């Protein structure tokens, strides 16, 4: 085991998109319990540095694996599919039109101060995302169809951002 091992290996978890999250939580805590700087506050300079590196790594790994989109991106990266390099590919027109419709609906609800409508959009989008993640799980874990998975991840990046904007709009109505 070393600092450059991949995030799944760090927690001794299988390299798959479908992950038992409570298992991830408990392994993360087990690792932190061993390496956290609080265990070495009174240690030597080297021990403190090593512990900081390990704890930093464990935090990074946990944050990446915890969120489905980040986890998917990371799996693609491990499989040699760089999202960055492929980000110039244009998205299909129907997807973009759908996006514009979503955005118009959010903007309208936001300017109208329509809390109820925003909640409704949130629910609808969250439901849509669940279905897409199920599909992504199949593509990554069973079909190993990385090119198609890459396309799906790029769509999800749009949608997650949209969800974030709905939440922001809800938050600004709250204040």
């Amino acid at each position, binding site marked *: 085991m070393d600092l450059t091992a991949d995030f799944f290996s760090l927690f001794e978890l299988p390299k798959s*998109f479908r*992950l038992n999250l409570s*298992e991830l939580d408990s*392994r993360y*805590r087990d690792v*932190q319990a061993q390496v956290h700087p609080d265990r*070495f506050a009174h*240690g030597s300079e080297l021990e403190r540095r090593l512990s900081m590196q390990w704890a930093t790594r464990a935090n990074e790994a946990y944050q990446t694996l915890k969120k489905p989109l980040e986890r998917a991106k990371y799996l693609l990266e491990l499989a040699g599919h760089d999202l960055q390099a492929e980000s110039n590919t244009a998205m299909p027109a129907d997807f973009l039109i759908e996006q514009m419709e979503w955005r118009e609906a959010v903007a309208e609800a936001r300017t109208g101060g329509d809390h109820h409508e925003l909640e409704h959009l949130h629910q609808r989008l969250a439901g849509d995302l669940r279905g897409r*993640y199920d599909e992504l799980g199949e593509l990554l874990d069973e079909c190993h169809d990385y090119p198609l998975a890459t396309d799906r991840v790029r769509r999800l990046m749009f949608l997650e951002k949209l969800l974030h904007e709905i939440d922001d709009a809800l938050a600004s109505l709250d204040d």
Partner: protein
Amino acid sequence: MALFQIAEPGESAAPHEHKLAVGIDLGTTNSLVATVRSGLAVCLNDDQGRPLLPSVVRYHADGSYEAGYDAQKQQALDPKNTIVSVKRFMGRGLKDIAHLESMPYDFIEAPGMVKLKTITGIKSPVEVSADILKNLKLRAEAALGGELVGAVITVPAYFDDAQRQATKDAARLAGLNVLRLLNEPTAAAIAYGLDNAAEGVYAVYDLGGGTFDISILKLTKGVFEVLATGGDSALGGDDFDHRIFCWVIEQARLQPLSPEDARLLMMRCREAKEFLTLNPEAPITARLNSGELVDVKLDVASFAEITQTLISKTLQPVKKALRDAGLRVDDVKGVVMVGGATRMPQVQKAVGDFFRQEPLTNLDPDKVVALGAATQANLLAGNKTGKDDWLLLDVIPLSLGLETMGGLVEKVIPRNSTIPTARAQEFTTYKDGQTAMAIQVVQGEREMVADCRSLARFELRGIPPMVAGAPRIRVTFQVDADGLLSVTAREQTSGTEASITVKPSYGLSDDEIAEMLKASMTHAKDDAMTRALREAQVEAERMIEATEAALAEDPHLLSAAETEKIKATIAKLRETVAGDNRRLINIAMDDLGYETQEFAHRRMDQSIKRALAGRSVDELQALTPHGEEK
């Protein structure tokens, strides 16, 4: 110290004596020191049995000073030389400080942090804080009968890097070994959680003398995980005093006041605030130097009215923290109240209404932070007893970023990231042949650099001349467990790597600290050299003890030759410890550090493997690809 010495729960790390460690709550209004005695966290009182030390320092013409109640009593007589609420100035520039007009001090603008002109000389807020800390250190050493191994110092969770660094510098200046900077609400959660064996999501509402924090924590099986934190590092009980002060001036139609009169009236206002906690009406009377008599009455309803905006100012960060944690009000199982200012009935009512439950006030809001800090200090010093084995996962309160083109901020580490954390970002040049690049580090949530706090500015030089966009400059941010940042920049493509690590500009350099220490030593008649030698010897002995324990525990991780080598290096270190040459001791310690490096790595690997052992991949069922997001 333990060389990756990991004890199983219930088993002590090694048979050793109890190490003296304390937790210090360095507050705006009052400070406290606490320790763990026979397994119980207790505050250490002064010789008159008082746990609090007013955070007030008065400087005299002969260079001496007094801190605490005596200084507090004199504040209206000598306001210019009696510094109160110095915490508000820590890591702050002149333009950051509110209500300057009602403060009696002679401020001096200095880079990064203001200074104060006193009769003793110019004092930085770091020095004033150090004088408070020294007082508590002496109190603790007298009570515990020995030198302290180290201290945990608490800071408001919402303190930024500048304020944290200033606090750490103050502790070093007071001669304290800082085991950790601990966030105040987290300290309170430790005290509360361990006392009540609490599980679930808790909110800690911490309104102190000068700062406000809200932290949302998840408590599970001995893990304290901070999910989000927020606050206002310039909002506290002082502001409630100030509201009363302004109200009185208006009611009594007072002319501008002298510094002495202003301080006197402010004291009366504070007393009135405290009086209103248990009474419906408070009289405010003061005979001013100008001869005027102030005589007004403030009732609870008017007090609530003039302070209503302050209270709603605290609820904004509460909402934001909940959102950041991805939670709703109903998810919060309990609300712990911390800080003297939470005694105000209108604060308790507002918090209760917001969370739709009665806030928890069963722990003394003045002491709870110090008690939690003491518990943490005890653990960090290595006094582990098994039953109180717990882990703390805290976050940074504010995002960290870099200035990019057009004065925009590129966020590198978002707020509420669990610490320690690191993140690297790549940048490039925008001109052909560009060989240097200015890097500006900022902290804050706004998009424009001008609206964030600038932490440091440095230049990366020696970039090989290339066409614009070709160099790859990797900037790495590392935040340690104290929430303190260091930044490294490196050009990747060229063989020649340039790198620099910066300490934010307001921080005191090691030389400055040494200089200040020397200056204070001449007053204290302490022999700095003897002290440094003794410290090196203690450190070396600790190192030997820990290395030998590690050798005994894990001999299988080393070859016979490696073991021999380490043993020989220990023997050499032992020789130097017997002598009185500090330099030789340090060299021998470095040697031992070098020789045990590989061993430490192997022990770390082994401990992680052990942590994960006994689990098998087959157990992993109940697959849930999402569901953590709300």
